[in-house]
């Protein structure tokens, strides 16, 4: 025998009810016995059809009339509202325009004063800049002239040694009298060996030869 306490204080009920409609699952196809069943079309007699058509047409006409009436009323109200508001808004707009004009003039004056000051400063700086540039240019020119005159002086001094038609013969004579050969070689010790046909003498061998001779 189960004690009464256990039965009363149990967690889950003895008989559970599953809340589910008595129908087949959604994914189940049409039953085999019902595949070829074609539901019968509802039969409406000609009289009834005509009457239903008349009533439906009547209803549509009535509804259209009512809808049109209210639509027109709404449009009328909207337009009247717009016109009423437009008069007010025109007055307000004119006032706003006047205010804006005054404010604009005031701003213009302020900006003009500011601009005047700024222009003055700008002009000053521009003048300074140009003066500086002119000075620099002058200096540059002067330097150039100086350099050129120095060059001229140097060339004038050098011109005394130039070969002219008058002293050409003498120059040729002197050149023939002392020919200069620039074909020389230099060894590591800085000795110059002039001439093309100068035999190369090895210093070591030369030393040996000297030793052998003595």
């Amino acid at each position, binding site marked *: 025998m189960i004690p009464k306490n256990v039965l009363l204080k149990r967690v889950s009920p003895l008989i559970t009810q599953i809340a589910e409609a008595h129908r087949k699952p959604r994914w189940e196809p049409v039953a085999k016995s019902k595949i070829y069943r074609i539901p019968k079309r509802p039969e409406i007699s000609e009289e*009834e059809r005509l*009457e239903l058509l*008349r*009533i439906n047409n*009547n209803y549509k006409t*009535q509804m*259209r*009339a*009512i809808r*049109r009436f209210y639509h027109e009323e709404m449009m009328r109200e909207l337009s009247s509202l717009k016109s009423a508001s437009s008069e007010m808004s025109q007055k307000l707009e004119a006032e706003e325009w006047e205010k804006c004009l005054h404010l604009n003039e005031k701003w213009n004056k302020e900006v003009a004063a500011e601009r005047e000051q700024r222009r003055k400063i700008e002009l000053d700086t521009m003048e300074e800049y140009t003066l500086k540039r002119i000075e620099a240019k002058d200096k540059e020119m002067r330097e150039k002239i100086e350099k050129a005159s120095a060059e001229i002086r140097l060339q004038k001094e050098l011109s005394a040694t130039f070969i002219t038609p008058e002293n050409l013969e003498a120059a040729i004579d002197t050149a023939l009298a002392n020919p200069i050969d620039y074909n020389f070689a230099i060894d590591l010790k800085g000795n110059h060996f002039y001439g093309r046909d100068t035999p190369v003498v090895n210093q070591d061998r030369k030393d040996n030869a000297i030793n052998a001779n003595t």
Partner: protein
Amino acid sequence: MKIVKVETCPDEERRRVRVWVEKTFRGRKLPQLTEIYRTSYKPDYNLIPKDEEYKLLEAVKNSESEVILPNTIEMPPLMKRFIVKDHEKKGLETIKEYVLPLSYNHSPNRVARIAQGDEKPTIKFTMGLGKPASPSLYEGIPLQ
């Protein structure tokens, strides 16, 4: 349609003919004859023998009266009261005629004409049930 005139075609088109017919659409005869040539198919037509022609002509003759649709319809009773109250509330002048303007769908195939101005319509639409098309369905029911 009623065949009025048939004409043969030149030699190259020996199998064809040119036909002029009088067309009737929704009980209205078209003002001009219609020519049928080439762009037509035999199964679209059904030739009626001469002795059965009178039946068809009679059917056309019966529906020749002109239909004029009304411009307006009376207001529904509750709307009448509502509008009176509404206008009082808004301070508008009260309406004297409780009618609504009617609007129709536009179609080139409509044969019924819409009344213009004060023309008297042949049909009258009401907000009530109206005249039943088949009274046998309302047997034993009092209609207002």
